[in-house]
């Protein structure tokens, strides 16, 4: 009887481990249109209304805990903001270029009214779910293909770039944030030294897993004069053949540090994103009536 129980227990364990490994292997090997991916989208479609209801019902609790966290962070945040304000004040007074940059930023912050998103139709969506691990920086929003959302469309908040749509069902979508390990965004640094915004210093923004408030701008030449406080925006299109998924001049973040490694021909620039990606209640998906997103999906193009 005891031996039978032990055998049964071990059999269940082996079976479950084998099932997990089977799922992992098949899922990893199949394309985005494969049966397991389709199953996930189907489940998302079914659970999205439940998630939305639960998200609304539990919002007071989230706000309560958010208040505690805000209070804990308030002192550090105040000191940091004071320092940042002083730095910005010096620069605004000191340089005409910085003044121009300032006015440019003000325009960028009003995304809906600016030229940046001209040709796009922003769709406002509520965040109804979020991945709990640092390895998957994704959120689920309550707008899907019925609202014109398509895969690879850019997503912004009032502060700046948030990410891109990576899966769509009829009533919900998954957004992969710019802090996800698979994310990459071409970006440009707006330095006062380079007044022509089309010729700013460009690089590729990659996240650092485990540091959601720190993005890395890579492939920036060592000679590029980048300073703390410089603003980083999306580079946008450079070629009609290889058009970027993100429109140009969407604000991404501010430079906090530049690592100048002696043996490398590039410097690595650290950026603090403008958008607080851990506190998103609403985002805007920049839709284009569906045509562009669908064609990109058909081509299987990546950013």
């Amino acid at each position, binding site marked *: 009887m005891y031996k039978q129980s032990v055998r049964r227990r071990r059999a269940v*364990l082996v079976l479950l481990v084998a099932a*997990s490994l089977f799922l992992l292997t098949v899922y*990893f090997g199949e394309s985005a249109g494969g049966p397991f991916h389709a199953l996930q989208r189907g489940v998302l479609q079914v659970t999205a209304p439940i*998630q939305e209801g639960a998200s609304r019902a539990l919002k007071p609790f989230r706000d309560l*805990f958010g208040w505690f966290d805000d209070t804990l962070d308030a002192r550090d945040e105040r000191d940091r903001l004071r320092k940042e304000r002083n730095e910005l004040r010096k620069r605004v007074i000191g340089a005409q270029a910085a003044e121009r940059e300032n006015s440019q930023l003000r325009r960028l912050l009003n995304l809906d009214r600016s030229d940046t998103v001209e040709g796009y139709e922003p769709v406002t969506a509520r965040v109804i779910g*979020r991945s709990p691990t640092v390895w998957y920086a994704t959120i*689920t929003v309550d707008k899907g293909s019925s609202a014109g959302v398509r895969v690879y469309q850019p997503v912004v908040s009032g502060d700046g770039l948030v990410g891109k749509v990576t899966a769509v069902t009829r009533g919900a979508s998954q957004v992969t944030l710019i802090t996800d390990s698979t994310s990459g965004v071409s970006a440009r640094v707006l330095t006062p030294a380079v007044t022509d915004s089309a010729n700013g210093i460009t690089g590729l923004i*990659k996240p650092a897993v485990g540091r959601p408030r720190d993005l890395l701008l890579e492939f920036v030449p060592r000679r590029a004069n980048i300073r703390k406080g410089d603003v980083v925006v999306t580079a946008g299109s450079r070629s009609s053949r290889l058009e970027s998924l993100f429109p140009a001049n969407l604000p991404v973040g501010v430079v906090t540090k530049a690592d100048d490694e002696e043996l490398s021909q590039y410097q690595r620039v650290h950026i603090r994103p403008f958008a607080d990606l851990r506190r998103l209640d609403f985002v805007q998906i920049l839709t284009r009536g569906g045509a562009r997103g669908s064609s990109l999906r058909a081509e299987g193009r990546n950013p």
Partner: protein
Amino acid sequence: MTPSAALAVRLGIVALLTVLVQISAVSQVSLLGVSADLSPLVVASVGLLCGSVPGAVMGFFVGLFADTALLQTLGVSSLVLLLVGYWAGRLRELRDPAHALTPLAVGAAATAAASIGFSLVQFLLGVDAPVSLLLLRDILVTILVNAALAMPVYALVRRALLPALPEDPRRRRRRAYVTGGLSPISRA
């Protein structure tokens, strides 16, 4: 309904609710820069209450629900959480820990195992982005936050499963001690 079927139904409901509450609320609350992760706590609680096989099955399905609902790589969370559930169940079967703080210690250990296991699987699958050492800090803070939540989560899971659990000899002994006999009827 048989006792095992009743337990299975309750476990299924608890698993679904866990994933739903995790995705819709808990993941969106940042405490000390991290979010609490209810999944290892619930799975470890089930292992402690029901044993290794229900713990492992619970871990597999909670992981499967989470990976499916979040469009993550299927199988990763299932693999990690089923081992967590199995381990918690074996702890109960072999040691039968009776200390009141056992759920706290087991919850913290389960969170550590799940976080480290999840990271290991991610490394095995390949990571494109650079990985910061601050990940270790995040894991440590998550363990602390989860440890703080372990006792209430265990109490909730126990409350949800208790009517469907088989009679616990320890509970029977305690009741016999309090009432001064095997049951109030035998006292009379």
